[in-house]
């Protein structure tokens, strides 16, 4: 046992040792296994070592064959001194050295310097023979040229495509050396080669690689063939890669090109419009804001719908989150946009993204795969010449449109009319009107700005044939279109790969980034307008004085005005991301690899906010400071065995088997203080506050253990089968339900490889695929299985104490949410895949839905975590690519069109007879609405809009009298609500589904055109058939003076002024709540849109003109240049509360999307 342990720990040590132990994985003879020697006058080194081992009772490990024939004198050993001294004496003279292992053993190896090696190379032993099989990497590095000067000579030439046009940017390298160059704009190159035997390798994306023996030629003409072998492309799938032709699942691929040319704050923004089945909606136009990321529709009611994001094999934290104070400032706390966890990763570091959609692809992620999986591969170095790349970009962004609100003259008319209509005296008399003559403020002008943003990227990459590296650094500063808001990120990534031995390869990644988000306050469902810059800019009146008169200070008498939010309120979040990952691949036998993958991911964030006097909240409590930190740490340990081999000519097997463990711990701590003597120091000095809250700390931990396996078998390149399974055990679930198994099966048929098809030159690819399987969702609060206590504060005999009371009722029966997904797909390629088409249809059924089921208040609780109900997503996805013009090369135009369209229908099948509601909206402030706007009910999509239908305006008293009874006391000119249930009373039973937040379909079309050095890329995308809930209009169109706010020009112009004057807008009133405290379908708008998302024009300068620079490129990009929509709000691409599946499609106080013009350059040398 001890021996085994020793062996294991040695291997373990070697695997983790940083560098330099090339021999580690080679077979080492363990000396203890040898027989004791006789005592000749001089002995072999091996014998001497064995003797030392006996004397000192230690283990000494050595490479037996390395010391064959080495002999040492017998008298050399001195038992009175230390083992180390003896080893030194024994080994140094013979060109060996030793190392002391942590467990007490010693390892002996040959010293580095070849010069001291005394013996000639020994004949290969049996053991070496097994390692001498062809390795994937060339085994020997050539001797550096400077050591071995050879006659050099120069070779030049030109690389063309099949039409004869010069090919720029082709990599030309000397095989087995670091030497290389790139062709210029005409395809010409020149480089020096060591001798006539040099082999040049020509490679370029989209072309077949070619190797040419130089021979005695000095001028070469090379023609590269277009590479249509896309079928042999490798696709990254979970825990491995498969050939595209062997793929049975639904995987969308995205190659990240030109990320630095577009303003994308985070990687998810890059994907917008470019992959089918993926609906990405930017939640807001705030810098650093999140993206609502839905793969094949919403599937969880309570939990996150965010797909699992796996970065280079490491599942990372990707949920948006915000640190919010635990009590007090309800109107304010959740008003900031959530932090987008992905914004900490530099989009330009990404090489490619694979999106796993169907069960066959996602089942390998088991309980985490239900929302789809996004596999991100970062750029790694390639052996060859070192490359330095640099890019810089500047963006100029503006708000494309303002909402027309009334000015002072119309506002006064409106206010007076409202008062008169309510039987009150007019509000503004002639003198008031005269006094206001010079005041006409458009608050939107005060809030928005032209934002200037910058992005800089600097990258180094290269390597030799054993070590490759890629290092990138980035600084981005995104300025918000709301004044004083910004997002800054600096990031660093270092990927180093090392072929340690022919069998062992190490891959390591270090990613560190820091960001600072200065947020402009948006809105929360509570609806205090003074808590949102955007709502504030709409509802503050044109007659309100924004400035105090002294310079540009906000008017303190106008508490809560949006200017105070951006000028004197401070709210900033800093976050740091550290992601360390090491993978070791050990080749056990041909095609059989063992991989250890481990790493740690830590994200820490600090939010600091101060609301001084002059803000609504600051006024109420004498200044409010909040400071909180959160640290999310998780580590991953993964062991997988993979097997990928062609067996015979007909069978190909790609299999993986593994075990993973991931464990998380989250810690947060928050402090809040109020009653500051003055506002000078803000959150920097809590100690000067008079009151501070009990700090809130949380520590949450959970873990997931999994066994996984997959076999992908291909017979004769035609028939494919994939079996996948994963067993997941989670700490979050109740004992007895902790483990679950998620299997899937998929079949595929490559028809194009059938003899009857192969004669057909027209069809180059035709594959049919089908899969069925299970995945799960672990999105359930930690601790949900157990009943827990909460704190409550109580006054006892005049002092305040904290006590405990039941706050959560545990559900010991909680199980995984399970998704069953059926997917059928077909891939068609024509004319050597010049035209490609993929079609997928799917049905996802989510059962045992995990949700916080509402409990009747009479239980004393509000919710319980439960498995209840079923949801279905059905859909169709089509992706197409056409290389319309392929004649690549100088002077010729190439044109590629790719497009995708996705249809998804989301429907709740049942919820155990319950109807769920979203949170109550606008429950504070002057509106007092306090009702949900969303519902989940059988037969409807999750989070469908729920409210009353309007049926025009009461034109006369008779209509009120003869109409249904309305207890909300309508008067002539009031909105008329529809009596949907026919009971002749307008009440809550007349509420119904009044809108669907999900689009009927989404599409994206990309056109790429290249001509000479110019390229043009155009992305048009659209969401059609979606509706939005324009909550801003609850204020601006209510025509209720009691809201205290301004009205939109449209509402004002269309207001009711007598019978027949308006059928769309009510009569202004001064008394009574807005909309008579009902949520009307008036606020639901068609928000279909088609937009020219990005348009990039780039020009690559002829390299010859600028010394040392390779492919210098200038580019100009326009983002959101044109938008076609009927939506009346700022922008139809919005989802204020996207983190909750029950609140989709809300536009409320959200910073809108903006139009951006970017200009920049990139270059390399």
């Amino acid at each position, binding site marked *: 046992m001890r021996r085994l342990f020793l062996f294991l720990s040695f291997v373990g040590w070697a695997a983790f040792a940083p560098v330099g132990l090339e021999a580690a994985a080679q077979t080492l003879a363990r000396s203890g296994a040898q027989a004791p020697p006789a005592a000749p006058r001089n002995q072999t080194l091996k014998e001497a070592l064995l003797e030392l081992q006996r004397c000192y009772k230690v283990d000494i490990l050595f490479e037996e064959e390395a010391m064959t024939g080495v002999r040492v004198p017998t008298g050399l050993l001195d038992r009175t001194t230390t083992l180390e001294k003896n080893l030194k004496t024994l080994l140094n003279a013979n060109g060996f050295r030793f190392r002391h292992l942590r467990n007490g053993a010693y390892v002996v190896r040959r010293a580095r310097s070849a010069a001291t090696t005394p013996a000639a190379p020994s004949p290969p032993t049996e053991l070496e023979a097994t390692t001498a099989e062809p390795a994937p990497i060339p085994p020997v590095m050539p001797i550096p040229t400077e050591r071995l000067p050879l006659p050099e000579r120069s070779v030049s030439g030109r690389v063309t495509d099949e039409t004869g046009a010069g090919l720029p940017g082709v990599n030309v390298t000397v095989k087995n050396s670091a030497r290389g160059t790139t062709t210029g704009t005409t395809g010409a190159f020149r480089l020096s080669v060591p001798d006539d035997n040099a082999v040049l390798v020509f490679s370029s994306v989209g072309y077949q690689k070619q190797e040419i023996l130089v021979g005695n030629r000095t001028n070469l003409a090379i023609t590269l063939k277009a590479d249509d072998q896309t079928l042999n492309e490798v696709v990254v799938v979970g825990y491995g890669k498969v050939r595209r032709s062997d793929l049975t699942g639904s995987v969308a691929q995205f190659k990240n090109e030109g990320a630095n040319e577009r303003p994308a704050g985070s990687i998810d923004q890059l994907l917008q419009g470019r992959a089918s089945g993926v609906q990405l909606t930017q939640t807001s136009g705030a810098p650093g804001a999140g993206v609502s990321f839905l793969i094949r529709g919403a599937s969880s009611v309570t939990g996150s719908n965010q797909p699992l994001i796996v970065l280079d094999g490491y599942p990372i934290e990707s949920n948006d989150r915000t640190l919010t104070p635990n009590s*007090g400032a309800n109107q304010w706390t959740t008003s900031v946009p959530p932090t987008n966890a992905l914004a900490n990763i530099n989009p330009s570091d990404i090489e490619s993204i694979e999106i796993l959609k169907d069960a066959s692809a996602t089942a390998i992620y088991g309980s985490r795969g239900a929302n789809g999986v996004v596999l991100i591969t970062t750029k790694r170095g390639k052996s060859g010449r070192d490359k330095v790349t640099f890019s810089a970009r500047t963006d100029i962004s503006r708000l494309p449109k303002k909402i027309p609100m009334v000015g002072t003259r119309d506002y006064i008319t409106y206010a007076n009319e409202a008062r008169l209509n309510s039987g009150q005296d007019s509000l503004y008399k002639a003198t008031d009107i005269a006094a206001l003559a010079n005041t006409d403020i458009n608050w939107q002008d005060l809030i928005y700005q032209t934002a200037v943003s910058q992005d800089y990227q600097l990258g180094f990459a290269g390597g030799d044939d054993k070590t490759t590296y890629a290092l990138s650094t980035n600084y981005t500063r995104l300025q918000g279109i709301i004044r004083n808001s910004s997002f800054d990120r600096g990031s660093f990534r270092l990927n180093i790969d090392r072929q340690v031995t022919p069998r062992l390869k190490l891959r390591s990644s270090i990613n560190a980034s820091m960001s600072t988000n200065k947020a402009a306050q948006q809105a929360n469902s509570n609806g205090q307008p003074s808590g949102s810059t955007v709502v504030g800019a709409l509802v503050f009146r044109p007659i309100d004085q924004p400035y105090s008169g002294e310079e540009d200070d906000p008017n303190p008498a106008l508490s809560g005005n949006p200017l105070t939010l951006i000028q004197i309120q401070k709210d900033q979040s800093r976050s740091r991301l550290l992601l360390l990952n090491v993978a070791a691949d050990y080749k056990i036998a041909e095609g059989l690899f063992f991989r250890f993958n481990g790493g740690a991911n830590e994200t820490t964030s600090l939010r600091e906010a101060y609301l001084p006097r002059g803000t609504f909240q600051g006024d109420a409590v004498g200044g409010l400071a909040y400071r909180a930190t959160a640290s999310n740490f998780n580590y991953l340990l993964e062991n997988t065995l993979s097997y990928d081999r062609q067996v015979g000519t007909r069978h190909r097997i790609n299999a993986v088997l593994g075990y993973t463990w991931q464990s998380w711990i989250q810690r947060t701590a928050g402090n809040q203080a109020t*009653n500051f003597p003055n506002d000078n120091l803000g959150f920097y000095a809590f100690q000067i506050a008079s009151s501070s809250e009990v700090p809130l700390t949380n520590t949450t931990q959970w873990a997931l253990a999994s066994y996984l396996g997959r076999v992908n078998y291909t017979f004769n390149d035609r028939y494919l089968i994939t079996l996948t399974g994963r067993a997941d055990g989670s700490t979050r679930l109740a004992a007895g339900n*902790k483990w679950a198994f998620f299997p899937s099966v998929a079949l595929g048929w490559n028809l194009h490889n059938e003899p009857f098809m192969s004669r057909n030159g027209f069809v180059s690819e035709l594959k049919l695929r089908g899969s069925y399987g299970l995945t799960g969702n672990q999105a359930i609060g930690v601790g949900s299985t157990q009943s827990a206590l909460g704190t409550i504060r109580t006054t*006892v005999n005049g002092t305040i104490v904290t006590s405990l009371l039941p706050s959560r009722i*545990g559900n010991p029966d909680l199980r995984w949410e399970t998704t069953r997904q059926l997917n059928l797909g077909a891939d068609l390629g024509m004319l050597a895949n010049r035209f490609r088409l993929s079609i997928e249809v799917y049905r996802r059924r989510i059962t045992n839905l995990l949700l916080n089921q509402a409990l009747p208040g009479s239980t004393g609780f509000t919710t*319980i975590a439960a498995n209840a109900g079923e949801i279905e997503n059905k859909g169709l996805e089509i992706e197409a690519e056409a290389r319309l013009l392929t004649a690549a090369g100088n002077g010729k135009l190439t044109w590629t069109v790719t497009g995708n369209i996705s249809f998804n229908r989301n429907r709740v099948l049942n919820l155990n007879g319950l109807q769920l509601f979203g949170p109550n909206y606008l429950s504070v402030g002057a509106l007092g609405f306090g009702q949900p706007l969303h519902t989940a009910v059988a037969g409807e999509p999750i989070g469908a809009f729920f409210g009353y239908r309007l049926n025009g305006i009461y034109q006369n008293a008779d209509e009120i009298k003869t109409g249904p009874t309305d*207890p909300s006391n309508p008067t002539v000119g009031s909105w008329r609500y529809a009596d949907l249930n026919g009971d002749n009373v307008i009440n809550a039973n007349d509420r119904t589904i009044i809108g669907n937040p999900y689009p009927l379909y989404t599409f994206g079309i990309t056109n790429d055109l290249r001509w000479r050095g110019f390229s043009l890329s155009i992305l048009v995308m659209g969401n059609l058939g979606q509706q939005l809930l324009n909550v801003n209009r609850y204020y601006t169109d209510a025509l209720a003076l009691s809201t205290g706010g301004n009205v939109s020009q449209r509402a004002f112009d269309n207001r009711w002024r007598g019978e027949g004057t308006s059928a769309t807008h009510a009569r202004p009133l001064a008394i009574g709540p807005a909309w008579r405290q009902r949520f009307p379908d008036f606020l639901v708008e068609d928000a279909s849109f088609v937009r020219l998302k990005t348009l990039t024009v780039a020009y690559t300068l002829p390299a010859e003109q600028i010394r040392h620079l390779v492919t210098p490129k200038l580019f100009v990009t326009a983002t959101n240049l044109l938008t076609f929509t009927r939506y009346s709000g700022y922008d139809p691409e919005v989802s204020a509360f996207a983190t909750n599946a029950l609140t989709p499609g809300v536009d409320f106080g959200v910073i809108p999307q903006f139009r951006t013009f970017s200009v920049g350059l990139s270059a390399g040398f």
Partner: protein
Amino acid sequence: MKTNLLRGAGFVASLLALNGCRLEEQIVDTPLSENFVRTQSDVATALNAVYGTLTEFNSFKFNVYSLTYGAADDISSTAAEQAALGLKSYNFATVQVGGTWNALYRTVNTANFLLDRIDNVPMPPDYKNRVKGELSFLRAFAYFYLVRFFGPVPLRTQATATDSDLYMPRSSVDAVYAQITQDLRLASALLPTRTRQPTTEFGRATKGAAQAILTKAALTYANTFDLKGEAGKAREWYATAKTYADSVINSNEYTLLSYNDLWNVDKERDNYREFIFGIQFTRDRIVAQAQAQGSEHGGRSMPSTMPNVSGLGTAKTGVGQWKVQPWFYDQCSTGDYAGDYRAERTFLTSFVNTANRRVAIYPSLPTGTDLTEPQPYVFKYVDGQALDIRNHESDFVITRLADVLLMKAEAENELNGPTAEAYVAFNRLRERARRADGVTTRTTPANLAPALTKDQFRQRIFLERGLELVGEGHRWFDLVRMKSPEGRTMYEYQFSTVLPKITPGLPRWNATARRWEGGRTEATNVHAFNARFLLFPVPIGELTANPNSQQNPGW
């Protein structure tokens, strides 16, 4: 080869072992129910929590008392949050209605939680009895508010657990009252009197509190029979009410203090010689605003321009949301009540504002540059030291001796007509009112003139309660339980008969004619009577989550 395989297997196995595989959930930052209530100190903590549920925003800090204020006829608010109650535009989704329901059931469940566990905790029997008494009191207290607001309600007498029936139907009003009276009788038996209560437990339920609430519960229950014409049952419960009222009065634990001092926040503790039970609030230096342990009825009741009355800004003003209907002020300051100290002390009709200008409130007469306002304020919850507008020291008094005396008079009147005993109890309030601020004395209000009929006497009690207890959360309950001169509820009488006769609109000061013109009530708060307003609607949360629930008639 074989050894290689073995080694490989061992390697993998060792890494698996290294990774570990413990899937037991460890909750380190949240106390779990299963470990709680083991010791006497746990019991004290859990009991504190039940009281804590009463001071939450959803409970008496705002929602519960706002229903009693806003839906009555004497006080109204134009602030949108509360306006719906006075406008009668509230419905099953109104925040205050749902909040009230949830808050009171939170109290019930928290009390049940400890009641279920207390018998297993080793501790001195007298303390255990006291705690049981308090828990019984608190549970009954919550149910008594529930049954009055909502009628039949689900009756939970055990803590809700995963295996409980989570979807309980509503029990009958009779069953709820049976539980309330049983709990209060038990509390009355187990709890110490005010003077015997340990000082560290000051403010907690006492025998007197249990009996006072039992008086009110019995009286209210009797009223329901009375209104239904079930005289026998009514008598039975009127008698119970009288018995417990007498017990409180005759215990001599409580006394009528100076009416002036009753609303002096600095003397609050001393006032518990008259206050029998109150919701304990205290200025909260740690947490501000809605979550503070301070009360917020002061902030909403005090004018927004009067300095040093509440906690807004450096001027310490209130936000002036609750205001008195002018007709109600008139009723409380004329006739019997002309020159009544209580009206002077209770209603704010003029003040000097933060800009040092006098504000004359109806019916005060402005002079010179005085500003005017049309509606007086209830000036009971004044706290110039309030930390913010939701953070006052002022307790919310649930019942005090004056209330019990009037209940005694009422019960006696219902049983035996306006006997001398009934007059004596009633006139103790008049007598105290004549003592005015305790220093000077007055001749008004005179004792109630004898020889009233039973109906007349009841009507006088209604009016007396209106003045004496204004702003203390009694009015709406009195409206819906008491019988009017026309035989139906006082609520119907007020809305069908009294209010329509009042000139609608608020008073307007006519500077030329130097008189208050206009109406005497907010026009928007006068509504045709509808029987559904006698109960609040069952909130939407209960209705949608509980398939066994039903809505109240008319909603």
